[in-house]
Protein backbone atom coordinates (compact mmCIF):
# COMPACT_ATOMS: atom_id res chain seq x y z
CA UNK A 1 0.00 0.00 0.00
CA UNK A 2 2.69 2.45 1.07
CA UNK A 3 4.84 1.50 -1.93
CA UNK A 4 1.97 2.10 -4.32
CA UNK A 5 1.35 5.65 -3.13
CA UNK A 6 5.01 6.42 -3.39
CA UNK A 7 5.40 5.24 -6.99
CA UNK A 8 2.24 7.00 -8.14
CA UNK A 9 3.52 10.23 -6.61
CA UNK A 10 6.84 9.75 -8.34
CA UNK A 11 5.48 9.37 -11.86
CA UNK A 12 3.20 12.32 -11.31
CA UNK A 13 6.21 14.27 -10.08
CA UNK A 14 8.18 13.33 -13.18
CA UNK A 15 5.55 14.56 -15.58
CA UNK A 16 4.86 17.81 -13.74
CA UNK A 17 8.61 18.40 -13.41
CA UNK A 18 8.79 18.83 -17.18
CA UNK A 19 5.77 21.15 -17.25
CA UNK A 20 7.17 23.31 -14.48
CA UNK A 21 10.52 23.52 -16.22
CA UNK A 22 8.85 24.78 -19.40
CA UNK A 23 6.93 27.47 -17.50
CA UNK A 24 10.05 28.45 -15.56
CA UNK A 25 12.09 28.78 -18.74
CA UNK A 26 9.35 30.95 -20.27
CA UNK A 27 9.38 33.16 -17.17
CA UNK A 28 13.16 33.42 -17.41
CA UNK A 29 12.94 34.43 -21.09
CA UNK A 30 10.42 37.18 -20.36
CA UNK A 31 12.40 38.55 -17.42
CA UNK A 32 15.82 38.30 -19.03
CA UNK A 33 14.74 39.69 -22.39
CA UNK A 34 15.39 43.35 -21.41
CA UNK A 35 18.92 42.38 -20.37
CA UNK A 36 19.42 40.55 -23.65
CA UNK A 37 18.10 43.65 -25.41
CA UNK A 38 20.61 45.87 -23.59
CA UNK A 39 23.51 43.65 -24.69
CA UNK A 40 22.27 43.02 -28.21
CA UNK A 41 21.79 46.76 -28.85
CA UNK A 42 25.31 47.46 -27.61
CA UNK A 43 26.80 45.35 -30.41
CA UNK A 44 24.81 46.97 -33.24
CA UNK A 45 26.13 49.52 -35.69
CA UNK A 46 24.93 53.12 -35.51
CA UNK A 47 22.64 52.64 -38.49
CA UNK A 48 21.07 49.45 -37.18
CA UNK A 49 20.40 50.75 -33.68
CA UNK A 50 18.77 53.89 -35.03
CA UNK A 51 17.02 52.24 -37.96
CA UNK A 52 13.28 52.25 -38.42
CA UNK A 53 13.46 48.46 -38.63
CA UNK A 54 13.74 46.74 -35.25
CA UNK A 55 16.26 43.87 -35.39
CA UNK A 56 16.31 41.14 -32.77
CA UNK A 57 20.03 40.43 -32.92
CA UNK A 58 22.96 42.48 -34.27
CA UNK A 59 22.89 41.79 -38.04
CA UNK A 60 26.33 43.30 -38.43
CA UNK A 61 28.11 42.69 -35.15
CA UNK A 62 30.46 45.46 -33.97
CA UNK A 63 32.44 46.35 -30.86
CA UNK A 64 32.46 50.02 -31.89
CA UNK A 65 30.04 51.26 -29.14
CA UNK A 66 32.16 49.65 -26.41
CA UNK A 67 35.40 51.01 -27.84
CA UNK A 68 33.83 54.45 -28.16
CA UNK A 69 32.92 54.45 -24.46
CA UNK A 70 36.25 53.13 -23.23
CA UNK A 71 38.23 55.60 -25.31
CA UNK A 72 36.22 58.56 -24.03
CA UNK A 73 38.00 60.54 -21.31
CA UNK A 74 34.71 61.68 -19.72
CA UNK A 75 33.56 58.08 -19.55
CA UNK A 76 36.73 56.84 -17.86
CA UNK A 77 36.52 59.68 -15.36
CA UNK A 78 32.89 58.80 -14.53
CA UNK A 79 33.86 55.14 -14.17
CA UNK A 80 36.59 56.09 -11.72
CA UNK A 81 34.08 58.22 -9.78
CA UNK A 82 31.61 55.31 -9.64
CA UNK A 83 34.28 53.00 -8.23
CA UNK A 84 35.53 55.59 -5.72
CA UNK A 85 32.05 56.45 -4.44
CA UNK A 86 31.07 52.78 -4.17
CA UNK A 87 34.22 51.79 -2.26
CA UNK A 88 34.17 54.85 -0.01
CA UNK A 89 30.53 54.43 0.95
CA UNK A 90 31.02 50.68 1.45
CA UNK A 91 33.96 51.27 3.80
CA UNK A 92 32.07 53.84 5.85
CA UNK A 93 28.96 51.66 6.03
CA UNK A 94 30.84 48.55 7.15
CA UNK A 95 33.02 50.49 9.60
CA UNK A 96 30.03 52.02 11.38
CA UNK A 97 27.38 49.36 10.78
CA UNK A 98 29.06 46.08 11.76
CA UNK A 99 30.14 47.09 15.31
CA UNK A 100 26.63 48.42 15.95
CA UNK A 101 25.04 45.20 14.72
CA UNK A 102 27.38 43.29 17.05
CA UNK A 103 26.56 45.47 20.04
CA UNK A 104 22.84 45.11 19.42
CA UNK A 105 23.01 41.38 18.82
CA UNK A 106 25.14 40.36 21.79
CA UNK A 107 24.68 42.90 24.57
CA UNK A 108 21.57 43.41 26.63
CA UNK A 109 21.55 47.13 27.32
CA UNK A 110 18.74 49.44 28.42
CA UNK A 111 17.22 51.19 25.43
CA UNK A 112 18.12 48.51 22.87
CA UNK A 113 14.49 48.33 21.76
CA UNK A 114 14.42 52.02 20.85
CA UNK A 115 17.77 51.67 19.06
CA UNK A 116 16.29 48.95 16.90
CA UNK A 117 13.19 51.04 16.26
CA UNK A 118 15.37 53.96 15.15
CA UNK A 119 17.15 51.80 12.60
CA UNK A 120 13.87 50.37 11.31
CA UNK A 121 12.45 53.89 10.86
CA UNK A 122 15.56 55.24 9.16
CA UNK A 123 15.39 52.40 6.66
CA UNK A 124 12.19 53.94 5.38
CA UNK A 125 13.53 57.46 4.82
CA UNK A 126 13.49 58.19 1.07
CA UNK A 127 16.48 59.86 -0.60
CA UNK A 128 14.21 62.59 -1.96
CA UNK A 129 13.38 63.63 1.62
CA UNK A 130 17.05 63.92 2.59
CA UNK A 131 18.24 65.72 -0.56
CA UNK A 132 17.19 69.28 0.27
CA UNK A 133 18.32 69.48 3.91
CA UNK A 134 21.55 67.57 3.19
CA UNK A 135 22.31 69.84 0.23
CA UNK A 136 21.96 72.96 2.38
CA UNK A 137 23.96 71.45 5.25
CA UNK A 138 26.71 70.13 2.96
CA UNK A 139 26.83 73.55 1.33
CA UNK A 140 27.57 75.10 4.73
CA UNK A 141 30.25 72.61 5.74
CA UNK A 142 31.92 72.45 2.32
CA UNK A 143 30.95 68.90 1.35
CA UNK A 144 29.37 69.78 -2.01
CA UNK A 145 31.53 68.72 -4.93
CA UNK A 146 33.39 66.05 -2.94
CA UNK A 147 33.23 62.26 -2.99
CA UNK A 148 32.65 62.23 0.74
CA UNK A 149 29.30 64.06 0.48
CA UNK A 150 27.43 61.42 -1.53
CA UNK A 151 29.32 58.62 0.27
CA UNK A 152 28.14 59.88 3.68
CA UNK A 153 24.57 60.12 2.43
CA UNK A 154 24.58 56.68 0.80
CA UNK A 155 26.04 55.11 3.96
CA UNK A 156 23.21 56.56 6.03
CA UNK A 157 20.95 54.22 4.07
CA UNK A 158 23.30 51.21 4.18
CA UNK A 159 24.05 51.32 7.92
CA UNK A 160 20.47 50.60 9.07
CA UNK A 161 20.34 47.76 6.53
CA UNK A 162 23.59 46.30 7.90
CA UNK A 163 22.40 46.54 11.51
CA UNK A 164 19.05 44.92 10.79
CA UNK A 165 20.58 42.16 8.65
CA UNK A 166 23.57 41.25 10.82
CA UNK A 167 22.00 41.56 14.28
CA UNK A 168 20.26 38.17 14.10
CA UNK A 169 23.49 36.58 12.81
CA UNK A 170 25.46 37.86 15.81
CA UNK A 171 22.63 36.85 18.12
CA UNK A 172 22.86 33.30 16.79
CA UNK A 173 26.51 32.78 17.72
CA UNK A 174 26.64 30.40 20.72
CA UNK A 175 27.75 31.96 24.02
CA UNK A 176 30.40 29.24 24.38
CA UNK A 177 32.38 31.03 21.67
CA UNK A 178 32.57 34.13 23.90
CA UNK A 179 33.78 32.05 26.80
CA UNK A 180 36.39 30.30 24.68
CA UNK A 181 37.70 33.68 23.51
CA UNK A 182 37.86 34.94 27.10
CA UNK A 183 39.78 31.88 28.27
CA UNK A 184 42.23 32.35 25.40
CA UNK A 185 42.82 35.82 26.76
CA UNK A 186 41.22 37.70 23.88
CA UNK A 187 40.26 41.28 24.61
CA UNK A 188 36.81 42.54 23.70
CA UNK A 189 37.91 44.15 20.44
CA UNK A 190 40.11 41.26 19.39
CA UNK A 191 37.40 38.73 20.02
CA UNK A 192 34.99 40.85 17.93
CA UNK A 193 37.40 41.21 15.02
CA UNK A 194 39.08 37.82 14.89
CA UNK A 195 36.43 35.47 16.30
CA UNK A 196 32.93 36.93 15.98
CA UNK A 197 33.18 38.43 12.49
CA UNK A 198 34.71 35.28 10.92
CA UNK A 199 31.99 33.23 12.64
CA UNK A 200 29.29 34.95 10.59
CA UNK A 201 31.20 35.18 7.30
CA UNK A 202 28.07 34.61 5.21
CA UNK A 203 26.26 37.58 6.68
CA UNK A 204 29.31 39.82 6.44
CA UNK A 205 29.79 39.03 2.74
CA UNK A 206 26.12 39.85 2.14
CA UNK A 207 26.34 43.30 3.72
CA UNK A 208 29.66 44.09 1.99
CA UNK A 209 28.14 43.30 -1.41
CA UNK A 210 24.89 45.17 -0.77
CA UNK A 211 26.61 48.26 0.60
CA UNK A 212 28.96 48.30 -2.40
CA UNK A 213 25.98 48.06 -4.75
CA UNK A 214 24.14 50.83 -2.88
CA UNK A 215 27.03 53.12 -3.76
CA UNK A 216 27.43 51.82 -7.29
CA UNK A 217 23.70 52.18 -8.08
CA UNK A 218 23.20 55.59 -6.46
CA UNK A 219 21.82 58.35 -8.64
CA UNK A 220 20.04 60.93 -6.48
CA UNK A 221 22.76 61.80 -3.96
CA UNK A 222 25.71 61.89 -6.37
CA UNK A 223 23.76 63.89 -8.90
CA UNK A 224 22.55 66.48 -6.39
CA UNK A 225 25.70 66.97 -4.32
CA UNK A 226 28.16 66.92 -7.24
CA UNK A 227 27.13 69.57 -9.73
CA UNK A 228 30.30 69.27 -11.79
CA UNK A 229 30.11 66.40 -14.33
CA UNK A 230 33.80 65.55 -13.70
CA UNK A 231 32.88 64.46 -10.16
CA UNK A 232 29.80 62.49 -11.09
CA UNK A 233 29.58 58.68 -11.32
CA UNK A 234 28.29 56.82 -14.39
CA UNK A 235 24.70 56.68 -13.13
CA UNK A 236 24.49 60.45 -12.71
CA UNK A 237 26.10 61.18 -16.06
CA UNK A 238 23.59 59.17 -18.09
CA UNK A 239 21.85 62.37 -19.26
CA UNK A 240 25.12 63.93 -20.32
CA UNK A 241 26.00 60.93 -22.45
CA UNK A 242 22.47 60.71 -23.79
CA UNK A 243 22.75 64.19 -25.23
CA UNK A 244 26.31 63.48 -26.36
CA UNK A 245 25.33 60.33 -28.26
CA UNK A 246 22.01 61.70 -29.47
CA UNK A 247 20.07 58.87 -31.07
CA UNK A 248 23.03 56.47 -30.98
CA UNK A 249 21.25 53.96 -28.78
CA UNK A 250 24.02 51.41 -29.31
CA UNK A 251 26.52 53.64 -27.46
CA UNK A 252 24.04 54.41 -24.68
CA UNK A 253 23.29 50.70 -24.27
CA UNK A 254 27.00 49.82 -24.10
CA UNK A 255 27.28 52.50 -21.41
CA UNK A 256 24.42 50.85 -19.50
CA UNK A 257 25.87 47.38 -20.00
CA UNK A 258 29.15 48.47 -18.42
CA UNK A 259 27.19 49.66 -15.38
CA UNK A 260 25.29 46.37 -15.15
CA UNK A 261 28.23 43.97 -15.61
CA UNK A 262 29.69 44.28 -12.08
CA UNK A 263 26.22 43.79 -10.65
CA UNK A 264 25.63 40.64 -12.67
CA UNK A 265 29.09 39.25 -11.84
CA UNK A 266 28.71 39.86 -8.11
CA UNK A 267 25.28 38.37 -8.29
CA UNK A 268 26.27 35.22 -10.17
CA UNK A 269 29.16 34.44 -7.83
CA UNK A 270 27.56 35.44 -4.55
CA UNK A 271 23.93 34.66 -5.28
CA UNK A 272 23.21 32.64 -2.16
CA UNK A 273 24.64 35.34 0.10
CA UNK A 274 22.65 38.13 -1.51
CA UNK A 275 19.38 36.21 -1.63
CA UNK A 276 19.74 35.11 1.99
CA UNK A 277 20.65 38.60 3.13
CA UNK A 278 17.77 40.29 1.35
CA UNK A 279 15.18 37.98 2.84
CA UNK A 280 16.66 38.16 6.32
CA UNK A 281 16.61 41.95 6.25
CA UNK A 282 13.06 42.30 5.06
CA UNK A 283 10.92 39.59 6.59
CA UNK A 284 11.07 38.05 10.00
CA UNK A 285 11.06 34.31 9.93
Amino acid at each position, binding site marked *: MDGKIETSLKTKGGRSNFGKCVI*AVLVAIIFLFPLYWLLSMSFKTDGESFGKLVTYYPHSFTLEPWIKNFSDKDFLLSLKNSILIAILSMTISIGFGVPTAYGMGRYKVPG*SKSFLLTFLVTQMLPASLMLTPMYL*IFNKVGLLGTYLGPALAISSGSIPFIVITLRPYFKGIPVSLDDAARIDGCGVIRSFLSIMIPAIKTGVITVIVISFLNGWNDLAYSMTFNVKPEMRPLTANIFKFQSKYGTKWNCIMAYGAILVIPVVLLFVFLQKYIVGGLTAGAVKE
Partner: protein
Amino acid sequence: MSIAAKKRLEGYGFIAPGFLYVLLVLGYPLVYNIILSFKNVDVKTFASGTSKFVGFANYIELFHDPTFLLVLKNTFVFTIACLAIQFTLGFLLALLFSQKFTFAGPIRGLVLVAYMMPMSVTAMLGKNMFGVTEGVINDLLMKIGLINAPVEWLVSSSTAMIAVIAVNCWVGIPFNMLLLTSGLTGISQDVYESASLDGANKFQRFFYITLPLMKSSILAVLMLGFIYTFKAFDLMFIMTSGGPLNSTDVLGTYAYTLSFTKYEFSQGSAAALVLFCCLFVIGLFYLRLTTKEDD
Protein backbone atom coordinates in the same frame (compact mmCIF):
# COMPACT_ATOMS: atom_id res chain seq x y z
CA MET B 1 33.00 49.07 38.52
CA SER B 2 30.75 46.02 38.63
CA ILE B 3 30.96 43.43 35.88
CA ALA B 4 27.41 44.21 34.74
CA ALA B 5 28.17 47.91 34.44
CA LYS B 6 31.35 47.15 32.51
CA LYS B 7 29.39 44.89 30.16
CA ARG B 8 26.82 47.62 29.58
CA LEU B 9 29.53 50.10 28.77
CA GLU B 10 31.05 47.67 26.27
CA GLY B 11 27.65 47.24 24.65
CA TYR B 12 27.10 50.98 24.30
CA GLY B 13 30.63 51.29 22.94
CA PHE B 14 29.82 48.91 20.11
CA ILE B 15 26.39 50.37 19.42
CA ALA B 16 27.56 53.99 19.44
CA PRO B 17 29.26 54.34 16.01
CA GLY B 18 26.29 53.36 13.85
CA PHE B 19 23.70 54.94 16.10
CA LEU B 20 25.45 58.30 16.35
CA TYR B 21 26.09 58.23 12.61
CA VAL B 22 22.41 57.77 11.88
CA LEU B 23 21.44 60.49 14.38
CA LEU B 24 23.89 62.94 12.87
CA VAL B 25 23.61 62.18 9.14
CA LEU B 26 19.90 61.33 9.03
CA GLY B 27 18.33 62.69 12.22
CA TYR B 28 19.74 66.17 11.99
CA PRO B 29 18.79 66.72 8.31
CA LEU B 30 15.33 65.32 9.06
CA VAL B 31 14.76 67.91 11.80
CA TYR B 32 16.33 70.57 9.59
CA ASN B 33 13.90 69.58 6.83
CA ILE B 34 10.90 70.01 9.11
CA ILE B 35 12.06 73.49 10.14
CA LEU B 36 12.83 74.32 6.51
CA SER B 37 9.30 73.48 5.45
CA PHE B 38 7.92 76.17 7.78
CA LYS B 39 10.27 78.87 6.48
CA ASN B 40 10.64 80.68 3.17
CA VAL B 41 14.10 79.49 2.13
CA ASP B 42 14.87 79.86 -1.56
CA VAL B 43 18.12 80.54 -3.33
CA LYS B 44 18.02 84.26 -2.45
CA THR B 45 17.01 84.10 1.22
CA PHE B 46 19.45 81.21 1.78
CA ALA B 47 22.40 83.17 0.42
CA SER B 48 21.52 86.35 2.30
CA GLY B 49 20.37 84.55 5.47
CA THR B 50 17.15 86.55 5.62
CA SER B 51 14.69 83.65 5.63
CA LYS B 52 11.89 83.74 8.18
CA PHE B 53 9.14 81.50 9.51
CA VAL B 54 5.97 81.50 7.45
CA GLY B 55 3.92 78.90 9.31
CA PHE B 56 1.94 76.55 7.09
CA ALA B 57 2.17 78.82 4.04
CA ASN B 58 4.23 76.30 2.03
CA TYR B 59 1.78 73.49 2.72
CA ILE B 60 -1.23 75.69 1.95
CA GLU B 61 0.36 76.73 -1.32
CA LEU B 62 1.13 73.10 -2.23
CA PHE B 63 -2.39 71.90 -1.62
CA HIS B 64 -3.78 74.75 -3.73
CA ASP B 65 -1.42 73.91 -6.59
CA PRO B 66 -3.18 71.74 -9.22
CA THR B 67 0.17 70.27 -10.31
CA PHE B 68 0.90 69.09 -6.78
CA LEU B 69 -2.54 67.49 -6.51
CA LEU B 70 -1.91 65.74 -9.83
CA VAL B 71 1.48 64.58 -8.56
CA LEU B 72 -0.12 63.25 -5.37
CA LYS B 73 -2.68 61.35 -7.43
CA ASN B 74 0.06 60.01 -9.76
CA THR B 75 2.04 58.73 -6.80
CA PHE B 76 -0.93 56.78 -5.47
CA VAL B 77 -1.96 55.47 -8.90
CA PHE B 78 1.61 54.34 -9.58
CA THR B 79 2.01 52.71 -6.17
CA ILE B 80 -1.32 50.91 -6.08
CA ALA B 81 -1.07 49.65 -9.67
CA CYS B 82 2.48 48.41 -9.12
CA LEU B 83 1.59 46.75 -5.82
CA ALA B 84 -1.41 44.94 -7.31
CA ILE B 85 0.53 43.63 -10.32
CA GLN B 86 3.77 42.83 -8.49
CA PHE B 87 2.05 41.06 -5.67
CA THR B 88 -0.29 38.95 -7.80
CA LEU B 89 2.32 37.86 -10.33
CA GLY B 90 5.02 37.63 -7.68
CA PHE B 91 2.83 35.31 -5.62
CA LEU B 92 2.04 33.09 -8.62
CA LEU B 93 5.75 32.83 -9.42
CA ALA B 94 6.56 32.16 -5.77
CA LEU B 95 4.07 29.27 -5.77
CA LEU B 96 5.85 27.87 -8.82
CA PHE B 97 9.42 28.42 -7.62
CA SER B 98 8.88 27.20 -4.07
CA GLN B 99 8.37 23.71 -5.52
CA LYS B 100 11.26 21.41 -6.19
CA PHE B 101 12.04 20.96 -9.88
CA THR B 102 15.12 20.91 -12.07
CA PHE B 103 15.62 24.59 -12.85
CA ALA B 104 13.90 26.12 -9.81
CA GLY B 105 17.02 27.42 -8.06
CA PRO B 106 19.03 28.87 -10.94
CA ILE B 107 16.10 30.57 -12.68
CA ARG B 108 14.78 32.06 -9.46
CA GLY B 109 18.23 33.57 -8.95
CA LEU B 110 18.61 34.82 -12.52
CA VAL B 111 15.30 36.64 -12.48
CA LEU B 112 16.48 38.57 -9.42
CA VAL B 113 19.23 40.33 -11.37
CA ALA B 114 16.55 42.80 -12.45
CA TYR B 115 16.15 43.83 -8.82
CA MET B 116 19.86 44.41 -8.25
CA MET B 117 20.52 46.49 -11.39
CA PRO B 118 20.99 50.26 -11.11
CA MET B 119 17.51 51.75 -11.53
CA SER B 120 18.96 54.43 -13.79
CA VAL B 121 20.02 51.79 -16.34
CA THR B 122 16.67 50.04 -16.08
CA ALA B 123 14.94 53.37 -16.72
CA MET B 124 17.13 54.10 -19.73
CA LEU B 125 16.45 50.64 -21.10
CA GLY B 126 12.73 51.25 -20.59
CA LYS B 127 13.00 54.52 -22.49
CA ASN B 128 14.45 52.67 -25.47
CA MET B 129 12.11 49.68 -25.36
CA PHE B 130 9.03 51.89 -25.17
CA GLY B 131 10.27 54.09 -28.04
CA VAL B 132 7.77 54.80 -30.82
CA THR B 133 9.61 53.53 -33.92
CA GLU B 134 12.83 52.11 -32.47
CA GLY B 135 11.06 50.45 -29.54
CA VAL B 136 10.86 46.69 -29.35
CA ILE B 137 7.59 46.74 -27.36
CA ASN B 138 5.69 48.36 -30.25
CA ASP B 139 7.35 46.01 -32.72
CA LEU B 140 6.39 42.92 -30.71
CA LEU B 141 2.83 44.12 -30.13
CA MET B 142 2.41 44.77 -33.86
CA LYS B 143 3.87 41.36 -34.73
CA ILE B 144 1.35 39.64 -32.46
CA GLY B 145 -1.36 41.83 -33.92
CA LEU B 146 -2.46 43.51 -30.68
CA ILE B 147 -1.95 46.97 -32.16
CA ASN B 148 -2.04 48.21 -35.76
CA ALA B 149 0.04 51.35 -35.45
CA PRO B 150 2.89 52.21 -33.07
CA VAL B 151 1.73 53.53 -29.68
CA GLU B 152 3.36 56.80 -28.59
CA TRP B 153 4.05 55.40 -25.11
CA LEU B 154 6.27 58.06 -23.58
CA VAL B 155 5.16 60.90 -25.84
CA SER B 156 1.52 60.82 -24.85
CA SER B 157 0.44 61.77 -21.35
CA SER B 158 -2.26 59.09 -21.35
CA THR B 159 0.13 56.15 -21.85
CA ALA B 160 3.39 57.24 -20.21
CA MET B 161 2.25 56.08 -16.77
CA ILE B 162 1.50 52.58 -18.14
CA ALA B 163 5.05 52.29 -19.48
CA VAL B 164 6.57 53.46 -16.19
CA ILE B 165 4.44 51.00 -14.21
CA ALA B 166 5.45 48.16 -16.54
CA VAL B 167 9.15 48.87 -16.07
CA ASN B 168 8.78 49.12 -12.31
CA CYS B 169 6.95 45.79 -12.21
CA TRP B 170 9.82 44.18 -14.08
CA VAL B 171 11.90 45.01 -11.00
CA GLY B 172 9.20 44.51 -8.38
CA ILE B 173 7.84 41.09 -9.40
CA PRO B 174 11.15 39.25 -8.75
CA PHE B 175 11.48 41.01 -5.40
CA ASN B 176 7.98 40.01 -4.33
CA MET B 177 8.64 36.51 -5.55
CA LEU B 178 11.83 36.23 -3.49
CA LEU B 179 10.22 37.33 -0.23
CA LEU B 180 7.08 35.25 -0.75
CA THR B 181 9.07 32.16 -1.73
CA SER B 182 10.96 32.31 1.54
CA GLY B 183 7.64 32.54 3.36
CA LEU B 184 6.23 29.59 1.41
CA THR B 185 9.20 27.30 1.98
CA GLY B 186 8.79 27.96 5.70
CA ILE B 187 5.47 26.10 5.70
CA SER B 188 5.98 22.51 6.72
CA GLN B 189 5.15 19.90 4.07
CA ASP B 190 3.48 17.75 6.73
CA VAL B 191 0.59 20.20 6.92
CA TYR B 192 -0.12 19.78 3.21
CA GLU B 193 0.25 16.03 3.34
CA SER B 194 -2.20 15.58 6.18
CA ALA B 195 -4.60 17.93 4.42
CA SER B 196 -4.52 15.96 1.18
CA LEU B 197 -5.05 12.74 3.13
CA ASP B 198 -8.14 14.44 4.55
CA GLY B 199 -9.28 14.98 0.96
CA ALA B 200 -8.55 18.69 0.57
CA ASN B 201 -8.08 19.71 -3.06
CA LYS B 202 -5.51 22.17 -4.43
CA PHE B 203 -7.70 25.25 -4.04
CA GLN B 204 -8.83 24.32 -0.56
CA ARG B 205 -5.23 23.78 0.45
CA PHE B 206 -4.30 27.19 -0.94
CA PHE B 207 -7.11 29.12 0.73
CA TYR B 208 -7.25 27.26 4.04
CA ILE B 209 -3.57 26.48 4.61
CA THR B 210 -1.22 28.57 2.46
CA LEU B 211 -2.91 31.94 2.78
CA PRO B 212 -3.52 31.90 6.56
CA LEU B 213 0.01 30.64 7.28
CA MET B 214 1.47 33.27 4.96
CA LYS B 215 -0.43 36.14 6.56
CA SER B 216 2.54 37.88 8.15
CA SER B 217 4.77 37.34 5.09
CA ILE B 218 2.08 38.78 2.83
CA LEU B 219 1.56 41.83 5.04
CA ALA B 220 5.29 42.47 5.24
CA VAL B 221 5.71 42.18 1.46
CA LEU B 222 2.81 44.55 0.79
CA MET B 223 4.03 47.17 3.26
CA LEU B 224 7.64 46.97 2.12
CA GLY B 225 6.40 47.15 -1.47
CA PHE B 226 4.42 50.27 -0.62
CA ILE B 227 7.43 51.90 1.03
CA TYR B 228 9.78 51.10 -1.88
CA THR B 229 7.30 52.04 -4.61
CA PHE B 230 5.88 55.19 -3.05
CA LYS B 231 9.31 56.80 -2.84
CA ALA B 232 10.19 56.13 -6.51
CA PHE B 233 12.56 58.68 -7.97
CA ASP B 234 15.32 57.32 -10.26
CA LEU B 235 12.88 55.57 -12.61
CA MET B 236 10.82 58.65 -13.51
CA PHE B 237 13.77 60.99 -13.36
CA ILE B 238 15.64 59.13 -16.13
CA MET B 239 12.81 57.55 -18.11
CA THR B 240 10.37 60.46 -18.45
CA SER B 241 11.65 63.35 -16.29
CA GLY B 242 8.13 63.35 -14.86
CA GLY B 243 6.61 64.20 -18.21
CA PRO B 244 4.89 64.54 -20.55
CA LEU B 245 2.89 67.32 -18.86
CA ASN B 246 3.62 65.98 -15.34
CA SER B 247 1.75 62.78 -16.18
CA THR B 248 4.48 60.64 -14.55
CA ASP B 249 5.61 63.17 -11.98
CA VAL B 250 5.54 61.67 -8.47
CA LEU B 251 6.22 63.16 -5.04
CA GLY B 252 9.91 62.21 -5.15
CA THR B 253 10.62 63.84 -8.51
CA TYR B 254 8.35 66.82 -7.80
CA ALA B 255 10.13 67.63 -4.53
CA TYR B 256 13.43 67.44 -6.40
CA THR B 257 12.21 69.83 -9.11
CA LEU B 258 11.00 72.34 -6.55
CA SER B 259 14.32 72.33 -4.70
CA PHE B 260 16.87 71.93 -7.46
CA THR B 261 15.28 73.30 -10.63
CA LYS B 262 13.27 76.14 -9.11
CA TYR B 263 15.48 76.50 -6.02
CA GLU B 264 12.41 76.80 -3.80
CA PHE B 265 14.05 74.82 -1.00
CA SER B 266 11.24 75.29 1.53
CA GLN B 267 8.59 74.22 -0.95
CA GLY B 268 10.67 71.19 -1.88
CA SER B 269 11.11 70.16 1.73
CA ALA B 270 7.37 70.56 2.37
CA ALA B 271 6.55 68.30 -0.59
CA ALA B 272 9.12 65.76 0.62
CA LEU B 273 7.56 65.80 4.10
CA VAL B 274 4.15 64.99 2.61
CA LEU B 275 5.86 62.00 0.99
CA PHE B 276 7.39 61.03 4.32
CA CYS B 277 4.10 61.29 6.23
CA CYS B 278 2.40 58.88 3.81
CA LEU B 279 5.32 56.45 4.21
CA PHE B 280 5.29 56.83 7.95
CA VAL B 281 1.66 55.75 8.33
CA ILE B 282 2.32 52.51 6.43
CA GLY B 283 5.71 52.23 8.13
CA LEU B 284 4.10 52.19 11.58
CA PHE B 285 2.10 49.10 10.66
CA TYR B 286 5.25 47.49 9.30
CA LEU B 287 7.13 48.29 12.51
CA ARG B 288 4.41 46.77 14.65
CA LEU B 289 4.58 43.63 12.54
CA THR B 290 8.36 43.21 12.61
CA THR B 291 8.93 44.11 16.24
CA LYS B 292 6.00 42.15 17.61
CA GLU B 293 7.66 38.79 17.11
CA ASP B 294 11.02 39.96 18.37
CA ASP B 295 12.44 38.75 21.72
